[in-house]
């Protein structure tokens, strides 16, 4: 038996307000997830209470500012630094801002590019 899920679209301006509301309602932050589709980035904030997920999605472009929710959920700095390091997203006001050095990657923003089969430099494919 798997839980039914929905994802509610919100604007970037509502991110902090939603986080405050969810914390007030007694929800924990489960994860923040980023997906690159063409030239836009979808960021999903997932909260949970009593094993029920609540998901909110914002859509941004490279360079757009995303406000940090680390002032509300202190532990969100791991997700926000991850989005910064892997996708190159501009999350502002993070409580512990590693400025691109949380992940020690050899390639800058490795998840900001999409590799197709045709572009694959892998020898065994």
């Amino acid at each position, binding site marked *: *038996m*798997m*839980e039914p*899920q929905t*994802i509610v679209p919100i604007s970037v301006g509502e991110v902090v307000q939603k986080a405050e509301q969810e*914390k007030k309602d007694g929800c*924990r*932050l*489960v*994860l923040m*997830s*980023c*997906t*690159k*589709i063409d030239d836009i980035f979808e960021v*999903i904030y*997932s909260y949970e209470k009593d*094993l029920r*997920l609540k*998901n909110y999605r914002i859509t941004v472009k490279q360079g757009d500012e995303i406000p940090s929710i680390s002032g509300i*959920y*202190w*532990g969100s*700095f*791991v997700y926000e630094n991850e989005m910064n*390091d892997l996708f190159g997203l501009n999350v502002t006001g993070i409580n*512990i801002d*590693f400025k691109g*050095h*949380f*992940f*020690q*990657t050899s390639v800058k923003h*490795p*998840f900001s590019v*999409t*590799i*197709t*089969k045709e572009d*694959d430099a*892998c020898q065994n*494919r």
Partner: protein
Amino acid sequence: MSKQIIIPFGPQHPVLPEPIHLDLVLEDEKVVDAIPTIGYVHRGLEKLVEKREFPEYVFIAERICGICSFIHSQAYVQGIEQIMGLEVPERAQFLRTIWGEYSRMHSHLLWLGLFADSMGFESVFMNAWRLREHLLDDMEATTGGRVIQGVCKVGGVRKDISPEKLDEMLKGLRTLEHELRDLLNVFLYDSSIKYRLKGLGKLSSEDAYYLGAVGPTARGSGIDIDMRSTGYGAFDRINFKPVVEHDGDCYARCAVRAKELFTSIDIIDQCIRKMPDGPVDMKFTGAPDGEYFSRAEQPRGEVVHYIKGNGKRNILRHRVRTPTFTNIPPLVTLLKGVELADVPVVVLTIDPCIGCSER
């Protein structure tokens, strides 16, 4: 106020099999802050969905970690199955649950050995790993693999277990339970273990909840979060109660893992007794078109596999939030106030799996 100094802990450290770095800010011998850095061995496995078709990507999902490998593959395939609306045969769900619990037990025993070794308790280390071998033997006999099973697939599982083998496993688990009880009585009720762990590295239930702690780290602080309660796999058909301790210290986190070994044996026992007949896989056509957050309970806590597909053979996004990744903020918090000499022990009580975090 004493002068503050910063001592680097890791990325290479005798108690860490994998690299994580902590900058420990100390006043005298006391930790006042800890700043983590990860990503030393980040592999970018999530990006491989762009190059591998979704049915074969199961093998990559399973290789995110060498310890909780099976449950990674299970969480991935159940996400795909949910998006595609596949009704997986019941017997396959029960088999997945059995192998998942075997994974949990062998992971907990691996941790117990490493943890005991870090404290110089060599006999517990050797006995924990000796008992773990029985579990790995059963995994190998039923799947063909000791740590990477390769048995989970979209629509079911690749192998069945005969009734005779199930009976043999059950008998083996009864013997194991007896030996585990002896071993854990020594570990949990040893005065020096209690002296070392009680009251150390405390994490309040409020901090555990809002900082994102999961698994035994959360349950050791009285937070009853266990994804098995959502009823994935066969968990909606068996009786199960999460192990919860309330002290929030190192001892409580250890006690949760120790007691979970017996819960896992009980779950496997129920699965074997209730095992339905029938096929173990199903055929399907098409590709996932939609998105889903598939959640499962790893040995270290809740894992989330986010899958987004657009009806093509290569899915758009596979994002894995592993338990150790979300246990980093609680770790940083519970290190504050501990003595420098206790840091290795405190770090090991969250059972960090850097391989998972560096997916």
